[in-house]
């Protein structure tokens, strides 16, 4: 988001900003060094490596500033929240891998039920709304919008 939310809780960013600054500084140095491998056969006033180098200078400078003068961060998530987020990412990663080969309907049904569960609903509403949502999204994408969704193997739906 571009604009700051004045209502969110904010904490000191000494650790967070310094880690981020270090990572970005390393990235800038690496980009500078690596851009020398971009070589062309013919001479140009500005070769393919110049622009990345031009960008990595301010990137490095501002990262250094971030390390030296860290600002504020938003409150970092607690352990329970981190577990939920990691779970969601894992689930979505697996979903991404199986969406193509297994087809939209079975994978989305399972993914949605588990996802709704992760978002805090009980099993019963998860099963019901997961099913309803899968079918209505299928109807929406496949029939109303005419987007080709991956089919189940051996079946045309």
């Amino acid at each position, binding site marked *: 988001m571009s604009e700051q939310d004045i209502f969110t809780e904010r904490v000191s960013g000494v650790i967070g900003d310094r880690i981020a600054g270090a990572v970005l500084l390393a990235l800038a140095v690496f980009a500078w060094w690596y851009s020398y491998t971009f070589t062309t056969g013919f001479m140009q006033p500005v070769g*393919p490596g110049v622009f990345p180098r031009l960008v990595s200078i301010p990137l490095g400078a501002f990262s250094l500033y*971030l390390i030296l003068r860290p600002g504020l961060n938003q409150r970092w998530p607690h352990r329970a929240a981190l577990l939920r987020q990691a779970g969601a990412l894992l689930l979505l990663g697996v979903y991404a891998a199986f969406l193509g080969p297994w087809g939209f309907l079975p994978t989305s049904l399972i993914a949605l039920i588990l996802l709704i569960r992760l978002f805090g609903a009980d099993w019963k509403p998860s099963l019901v709304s997961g099913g309803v949502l899968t079918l209505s999204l299928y109807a929406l994408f496949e029939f109303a919008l005419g*987007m080709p969704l991956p089919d189940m193997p051996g079946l045309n739906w």
Partner: protein
Amino acid sequence: MDILAYLAQGFVVATEPQHLMLALIGCALGTLIGALPGLGPVNGVALMIPLTFNFSLTPTAAMILLVSIYYGCMYGGRISSILLNIPGDEPAMMTTLDGYPMALKGRGGEALGLSGVASFVGATVATIGLTLFAPLLVGFAIRFGPAEYFALFMLAFATIGGVTGGSLSKSFVAACLGLLLGTVGIDAVSSVPRFTFGWFEIYDGIDFIVALVGLFAISECLVFLEDIRHSNKPTMKLGSAIPGMRTAWTCAPTITRSSFIGFIAGVLPGAGAALGSFLSYTLEKRWLGRRGDFGNGDPRGVAAPEAGNNAAAGGALIPMLSLGIPGSGTTAILLALLLSMNITPGPLLFEQQPEMVWGLVAALFIGNLMLLVLNIPLVGLFARVLRAPGWFLMPMVVMVAFVGVYSLSNSAFDLYMMLGFGVLGYVLRKLEIPTVPVVLGLLLGGQMEYNLRRAMAISGGDWDILWNSGISVGIYAFAITLISAGLVYGWLVRQRRIDAG
């Protein structure tokens, strides 16, 4: 009277049945997305872009749809601000200050009606401004060469985030990161692969849309997962929105002033709608002084930010269409859509595709009327959406993101990339590093480099060409002025916070 002739031509384009239909869908969808807490215009438009690609809409039709969603989000954002005290999007933040107290007093319906009218006036003022001023800016920009364009891009980066009071150094870091990410892929001039490390999937560069949906939609879900016990349901009685229109009449001076302030805030590159609503609210508060009861449910405290943010949303379209530099996060995304359809916004767009530009402007006038109808008599329908629980809405957002991105190229790689950008966006948000400059860098980096190299090719390798013309010096001076203004403004905000304790 050229403008009127063009505008008439635009109305012919905008009233084609398909375009009218898309405007209506966009307005309704936008209001809906805007009303949902946490989903704003940036997320809404980002989520819809992959879908528009699938319908193979013409650029004009796609723009009408997305800009209607954009305007709709600006209207919808106020609904959850007033009823739940949660801003549906960031520009709607100021509306909570007086909107929620009004709702607590049982005047929620009135506040919705009033803010609907204020939004309409603000957006209409901005659209008229767009009609009048965009062609002027175009006439000026037609003389721009590559060096001037390079300066213009510098201006866009120098000012994005700077004026809104966030950390200036953090938005610069974000912009540089985006620019660096934008160089990934095969260099168009020399055909050398850059930063691809042998992954053929990114030889075409990082797909902008994939990055966008990840940075906004997926990261929003991760934020939501932090605290899943969201139990904010509107409980108070809503009442009819119609009396709000009478209230709006008594607030007419406020609405007028705020519309103009918001419009100016929107035109400034990098400022956007949040600044528009913030400025209108604070200036109106100061203007009225003791005559106002701001913070305790003063109707003018609802009218001012709503007129301001809608006017700013329209104003932000001016630099986007006429110069090709976005004035806000959402216009950056709209710009991305145009670029990915091989249309370069800027002065030439007005010459080469007037039917598109003016069709869009006319569609905005029509869409505004539709939004007025959707948002005053029918506002109760949208308010009902707020009763849907988060565990239902957020997974739906994820599904739309997945299907949209997957259908672009049917590759799981894009989905992983989207998830990766989701994590990146989330971490950046926690660090209070804004994500919009990243998007902007990723998007404009290619154009910026292209203009730099063209300028250097013209000058034969002499870097002086970049600051050799009056126009580019003027642009750099303007950028420096805006940055200084941003620094002073940020300092003032901090002072006030210290004063307030």
